């Protein structure tokens, strides 16, 4: 068992809050982050039934601006950013020329010629170098800036999120559609609010100047208290996103897996003339990829976890990328890569759990979808 991490890790502006709230802290992607406060199950259930408040300030922001910014974004990401209106967001992949993931990102269109990519914490440096180089190659009038240190990011997620946040802002949140954003004030602080999240629930992510992060955090917790909003950590964030079948970079996809293999065809702008890796992805879409990410459910009491081998009919067939016992569905579920001709729901798998072959079955994703 490990002891508390030392001072070499990066800290978000809310670090002192987590400690005073009694969070258990862990190292995550070079950051000292709260993994749980009251417990993963408790926090997970709070988000499904009421609301949870997450510090996700470790996430990175990279902005691309200039007259040719759209051209640059279209070249480096798989989705079609030309379809974005100002204040609209899309999920996308930052791709290699092989059609694999440098990262998965959210693309925000701040203005016609100004985009912001929200990237994974552990990839900020890699992504920025990658993006800056590619933008230079595209040429014209576009430049990339790493603006990660300008924002703390606070996510309020759950069925009460809208009503709670509405008490603190003049922005009309019910008029803000899913995957849109706007600017305004929360608790008197100038912020960007986006209707996004990583939990499968309705919710908002608030981009806050770091100096005001504690003020906004405290105000939301206070306003949410009567409706049962509690602080939630990375542990619940992981079980929530997996239940909602959202991929996690580094687990479910990385530089060795393509967008088609990750079963994310919907984040590819197939009508675009070009983007990095488009030839390979178009070929895989037409002819099929060798393997594909599927969801599975354990049929016996056990959890298939990241890195465990998957067998089909006695033959090694793939590997588990994510797996957990989900607090809400109360099942052991996960994702795994399997050969593309063996992805049908109901297909029986065996997962090697520390030397023991345990039965599981492919099921269709998402595991959990909230009632609208």
């Amino acid at each position, binding site marked *: *068992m490990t002891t508390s991490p030392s001072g070499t890790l990066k800290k978000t502006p809310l670090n002192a809050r987590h400690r005073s709230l009694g969070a*258990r802290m862990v190292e995550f992607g070079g950051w000292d982050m709260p*993994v*749980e406060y009251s*417990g*993963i*199950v408790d926090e997970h259930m709070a988000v499904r039934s009421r609301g949870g408040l997450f510090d996700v300030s470790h996430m990175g922001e990279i902005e691309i601006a200039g007259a040719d910014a759209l051209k640059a974004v279209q070249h480096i990401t798989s989705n079609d950013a030309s379809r974005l209106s100002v204040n609209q967001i899309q999920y996308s992949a930052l791709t290699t020329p092989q059609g694999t993931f440098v990262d998965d990102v959210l693309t925000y269109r701040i203005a016609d010629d100004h985009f912001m990519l929200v990237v994974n914490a552990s990839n900020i440096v890699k992504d920025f170098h990658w993006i800056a180089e590619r933008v230079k190659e595209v040429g014209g009038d576009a430049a990339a800036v790493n603006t990660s240190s300008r924002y703390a990011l606070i996510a309020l997620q759950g069925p009460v999120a809208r009503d709670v946040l509405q008490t603190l802002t003049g922005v009309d949140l019910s008029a803000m559609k899913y995957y849109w954003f706007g600017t305004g004030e929360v608790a008197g602080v100038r912020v960007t609010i986006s209707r996004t999240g990583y939990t499968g629930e309705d919710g908002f992510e608030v981009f806050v100047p770091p100096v005001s992060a504690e003020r906004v955090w405290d105000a939301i917790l206070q306003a949410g208290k009567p409706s049962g909003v509690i602080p939630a950590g990375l*542990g619940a964030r*992981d*079980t929530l996103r997996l239940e909602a079948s959202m991929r996690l970079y580094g687990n479910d996809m990385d530089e060795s897996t393509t967008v088609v293999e990750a079963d994310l065809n919907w984040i590819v702008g197939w009508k675009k003339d070009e983007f990095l890796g488009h030839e390979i992805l178009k070929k895989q879409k037409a002819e099929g990829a060798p393997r594909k990410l599927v969801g599975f459910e354990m049929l016996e*009491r*056990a*959890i298939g*976890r990241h890195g465990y081998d998957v067998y089909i009919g006695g033959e090694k067939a793939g590997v588990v990328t994510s797996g*957990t*016992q989900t*607090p809400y569905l109360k099942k052991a579920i996960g994702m795994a890569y399997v050969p593309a001709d063996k992805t049908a729901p109901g297909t029986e798998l065996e997962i090697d759990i*520390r030397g023991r072959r345990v039965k599981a079955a492919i099921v269709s994703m998402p595991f959990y979808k909230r009632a609208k």
Partner: protein
Amino acid sequence: MSYPADLKYTKDHEWVKIDGANAKVGITDYAQKQLGDVVYLELPQVGRTFKKGEVFGTIESVKAVSELYSPVDGEVTEVHSELVQHPETVNKDPHGSWMIGMKVSGGQDDLLDSGAYTDLTK
């Protein structure tokens, strides 16, 4: 939570309650806090023997898998099957949640008492 004086402890965060030649084994409050919500327990068959420090089972929480180490030398005489069905009890009552009963054949001399264990977890 305090560490009961009638239990002995290991640096691997197991507790053992020794009564003559018999012992009951579980994990400490510190261990359950580190693990978080426990969801599975894998325990050995009655009759298996373990040396002190050998892995006798695994405990799995939502976020991690940990091995369980035998605090003494001995033979498994009982397995707490009800606890396997309700593993979350380990979080609620760690020092009351025995996992296996053992017939002790050695290794009980250098266990920690509650004071030494409390210092270890500070």
